[in-house]
């Protein structure tokens, strides 16, 4: 019987093996494959359309001063979203990014003012706090094997409480701080557009993380772990080490975010950043990164953060109530996740 089977299938030669592998695609499949390969395409299109539409609705929108304002409004969320992207790429989620950032900013501000530490030491302490907080999340996820959602839901509350305990609920004003801490809020002129140091820091982070994700073995392992943990393990990747490094890297990025936040608001407030957790996830999701992990780019996240900033700014310039901004962001999230689901449907 096996003999017959073999003979009745003449395509078993090495050359004919090839004939099976011809692609048959509909145009829609091509679009899907294109989006799958370059997940940043759809947010890029949305951003361009949004800028054009809002530009028509209100001429002040395309004003350099307004565009500069949007970038500054996006800087903090955009930075947190870098950390969030790394974690979501590993099929995790971090509800505590905002809380870690606020805790770090309070430590930096307090030590530099009340404790009289030099600004550099204060920033280094902030870095250590960020690393410790990220490391705690990482240990709970890798050692106790708890789902990242639960871990960071817990640490979110822990960090919020620690922040309030540590700071006694008091805001530290920027005017009391050394100049280095609020340096991220200072601006300079580029062809008439005011750019803040914080925005530049954020963009540097994007460039660095984009390079690392695309070009290094570590970056590929981040994707592999999020895509399929088991196959990553079988391929010889130390899954826990990759996860741990991602949470630690997130901690560092969040500490930088704290610095940007202090400059942006010219203060360190324990009550800031309540929305930042969810806003960072919003930016990542709108940017085309899959919540199921393993799929997405860091540039998509930047576009996602900009889209949210543009929508909020544009709708408010168009004279619409702030509720409509929230409504629009909600619609964007649902659309983005639907598109992701569609892309994930594999051609059989």
């Amino acid at each position, binding site marked *: 019987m096996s003999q017959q089977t*073999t003979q009745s*299938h003449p395509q078993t030669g090495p050359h004919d093996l*090839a004939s*099976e592998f011809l692609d048959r695609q509909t145009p829609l499949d091509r679009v899907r494959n294109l989006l799958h390969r370059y997940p940043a395409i759809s947010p890029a299109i949305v951003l361009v359309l949004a800028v054009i539409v809002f530009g028509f609705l209100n001429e002040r929108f395309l004003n350099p001063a307004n565009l500069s304002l949007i970038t500054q409004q996006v800087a903090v969320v955009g930075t947190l979203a870098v950390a969030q992207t790394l974690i979501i790429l590993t099929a995790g989620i971090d509800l505590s990014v905002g809380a870690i950032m606020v805790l770090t900013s309070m430590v930096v501000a307090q030590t530099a003012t009340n404790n009289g530490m030099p600004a550099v030491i204060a920033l280094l302490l902030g870095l250590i706090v960020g690393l410790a907080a990220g490391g705690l999340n990482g240990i709970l996820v890798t050692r106790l094997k708890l789902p990242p959602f639960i871990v960071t839901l817990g640490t979110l509350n822990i960090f919020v409480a620690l922040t309030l305990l540590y700071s006694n609920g008091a805001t530290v004003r920027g005017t009391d701080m050394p100049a280095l801490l609020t340096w991220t809020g200072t601006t300079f002129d580029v062809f008439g557009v005011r750019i803040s140091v914080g925005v530049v820091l954020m963009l540097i982070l994007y460039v660095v993380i984009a390079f690392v994700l695309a070009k*290094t073995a570590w970056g*590929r392992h981040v994707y592999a772990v999020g895509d399929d943990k088991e196959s990553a393990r079988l391929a010889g990747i130390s899954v826990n080490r990759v996860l741990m490094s991602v949470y630690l890297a997130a901690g560092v990025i969040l500490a930088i975010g704290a610095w940007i936040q202090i400059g942006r608001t010219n203060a360190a407030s324990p009550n800031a950043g309540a929305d930042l957790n969810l806003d960072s996830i919003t930016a990542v999701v709108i940017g085309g990164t899959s919540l199921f992990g393993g799929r997405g780019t860091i540039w998509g996240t930047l576009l996602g953060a900009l889209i949210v900033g543009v929508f909020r700014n544009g709708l408010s310039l168009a004279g619409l109530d702030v509720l409509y901004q929230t409504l629009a962001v909600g619609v964007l999230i649902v659309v983005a996740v639907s598109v992701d689901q569609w892309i994930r449907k594999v051609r059989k």
Partner: protein
Amino acid sequence: MTLTEETTPAAGGPARTPILEARSLVKTFGRVVGLDGVSLELYPGEVLAVIGDNGAGKSTLIKCLTGAEIPDEGSIFLDGKPVSFKRPQDARAAGIETVYQNLAVSPALDVASNLYLGREVRKAGILGALFRVMDTKGMRQSARAELNELGISTLQDVTVPVENLSGGQRQAVAVARAAAFGSKVVVLDEPTAALGVRESNQVLQLVRNLRDKGIPVILISHNMPHVFDVADRIHIQRLGKRAATITPQSHSMTDAVAIMTGAATA
């Protein structure tokens, strides 16, 4: 392409040494005896099929050979030298590549990335050494060459994500990965279990190509026609022991099933 043309005589000269040999492996799980003194020999240039009913110790045997389980007793020899694997990575480092039933490919990554997953080639110089920057171009080129060598020539676009491939193509990627790293032995666990007739035939052809390349293959399968189609020798597990080692020439499929179920002896 008939059976008689393909299969080589099982028994070689007395000088032939097995490339991979297991001697009297014992593995117990509590009071359950998984392996009860099993020996296995894999000779260079052959496809050895391992068959057996559920619970016969097939997967335990393979897990011991590939480092996923540590045998309680017995020894394993690779190229005549004793080896002991504590983890699957040890077995891989020694040259035993396993293609798992669930394929172990990363769907969203492209073909080339999958071939090199976990052992990315780094760029020369400080970028590669210090920052672990990958030589993506080089990896893509050698991925293409490797696929060509295995006769999978239309998988030329190694930048296609694996999830866009058919089941047979994915299996081809997994097999190519196993064959790509100068491995001494490739172990295929149920490679045709999830595939249709045509795709199964492609994978069986891949197994032959692999053998013709000089890489001996251990094939675990439930599918008797596939086993008899491609195997040079067949190791039959029964109740934790080796019931027999037969060849497709010496025994029929009915005989093999009879030995497997204990209705007959070799």
